[in-house]
């Protein structure tokens, strides 16, 4: 690969990272806290890539020989593999992949990440606002499995997206993914929501209000999932950070 091509690939990677960080879209894939390290990486790649693109057009002679040599020794496979870096760049621009959704949510493994041992006591949830306490899917599930007295008979408001399930006819699984590093290690978190009338379209984000009565339902041979009868459900926009970690 020629040196200016290499520089162009670096600039393309930097550009796509700038784009993802400034639009906030990077949160569809990784933790919010990774934004600053990503930005720093993009600045460094741009700083290395820019001079490579310009130097090439100034001095051609000697460098070309040097590079040809370098490529011959290297073989084409290793010399050109850098172009593969354009695959994630193209993927972001062409497919603009959405955060993980229903396709992987109904594979089972739900709530495995919150049902195991917890390290410490769970702090109480915040004070109620407009008659219900705001909780994330994860906050609710951790308490349902480990400190049920904190959420039983307490009106809660929870945001998640809709994943239908065959055995819930007037309900669905209110879902969010959790991860520890990035979407590649994501596991689904699900609450069985009932009493909804019509089930919203799959992957629609909703904010529901309901009161848990301490009931669990066993879906397939997975873990028991808490059942939340709800009084209201409002469609909402997808949160900036769709993952719940």
């Amino acid at each position, binding site marked *: 690969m020629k040196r200016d091509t*290499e*520089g162009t*690939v*670096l600039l393309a*990677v930097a550009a796509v990272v700038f784009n*993802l960080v400034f639009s906030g879209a*990077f949160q*569809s*894939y*990784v933790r919010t806290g*990774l934004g600053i*390290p*990503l930005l*720093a*990486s993009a600045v*460094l*790649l741009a700083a*290395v*890539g820019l001079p*490579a693109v310009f130097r090439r057009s100034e001095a051609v002679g000697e460098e070309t020989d040097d590079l040809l040599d370098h490529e011959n*020794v*290297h073989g084409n496979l*290793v010399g050109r*593999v*850098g*172009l*593969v*870096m*354009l*695959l*994630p760049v*193209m*993927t972001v*621009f*062409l*497919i*603009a*992949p*959405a*955060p*993980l*959704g*229903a*396709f*992987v949510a109904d*594979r089972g493994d739900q709530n*495995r*990440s919150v049902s*195991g*041992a*917890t*390290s*410490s006591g769970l702090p109480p949830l915040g004070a109620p606002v407009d008659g219900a306490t705001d909780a994330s899917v994860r906050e609710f599930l951790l308490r349902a499995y480990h400190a049920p007295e904190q959420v039983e008979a307490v009106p809660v408001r929870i945001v998640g997206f809709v994943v239908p399930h065959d055995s819930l006819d007037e309900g669905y699984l209110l879902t969010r993914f959790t991860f*520890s*590093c*990035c*979407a*590649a*290690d994501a*596991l689904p978190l699900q609450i069985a929501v009932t009493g909804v009338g019509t089930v919203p379209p799959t992957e629609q984000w909703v904010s529901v209000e309901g009161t848990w009565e301490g009931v669990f339902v066993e879906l397939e041979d997975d873990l028991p999932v808490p059942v939340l009868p709800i009084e209201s459900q409002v469609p909402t926009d997808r949160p900036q950070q769709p993952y719940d970690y």
Partner: protein
Amino acid sequence: MAAIFASIVLGRFVAPLADDPALQTWATILVSIFLQALPFLVGGVVISGVIAAFVTPERIARLLPKNRVASVCAAGTAGVLLPGCECGSVPISGRLVAAGAVPGAALAFMLAAPAINPIVLVSTAVAFPGRFEMVAARFGASLAVAVIMGLLWLRRDPQALVDRARRQSQVGTSRLETFGLTVQHDFLQAGGFLVVGSAAAAAIQTFDIPILEGDFPGAQIIAMALLAFVLSICSEADAFIAASFVDASPTAQLTFMVVGPAVDLKLFAMQAGVFGPGFAARFAPLTGLVAIVMAVAFGWWLL
């Protein structure tokens, strides 16, 4: 130019497919591994740039013990100092070899750094609350794998590795230029193979390919080792995944954490890039085997 035309043509054909949930999922996982690894990869190639520009063979010789066996042990233990994940350590060890380190020592550093650094140990402690023996077993088993592999490679084709690493040297007219050229070269090489490995790992996750559902002694351990190989999860996160396999025995969970940072799809591809496909084909399977044996040994001892 060709790339721009290609992307327009691709856009025509890819765009209609873009709503396909399987393709979306594959793309999401690919991009997420790529973004998660990027800061660590950039950090790693900056260090390799510094090594190429400023570290002379004399300085390496002064840092590492003269005795080759001692130098492997020292380099493995020095892995504690590099707070990062495996994506950064592969290019660094290539540059260490080029700068004159004994290949066995550089390989020990490459295997140890992502597994025993403070960030990884702390995240392991957080993932396994109150089970300090898991952290100790991980540290011990991973360091043992690194040192054993380093010692094995003291005798095997070291000269070929050195030659290959030297051929990739990027020498500029100034130190700053050498630094820039090395960063550019190593980023594209290690990054390219990182993407190849991530794309494969993402496909396996997307299509939920069953790894192994055997029913024989040790089946769980082998299944967890294979899972670590194909998932290619960053070593800073793998403890949380291991812990989430609540049905697996502690030794099987340990195996997942010892195998993953030492050998997985993306590392295999990156090692093939830096040290050559022939090297990777011999090094990776043996590393996997040693990692499983060490995990079982330390699991039996400590867990």
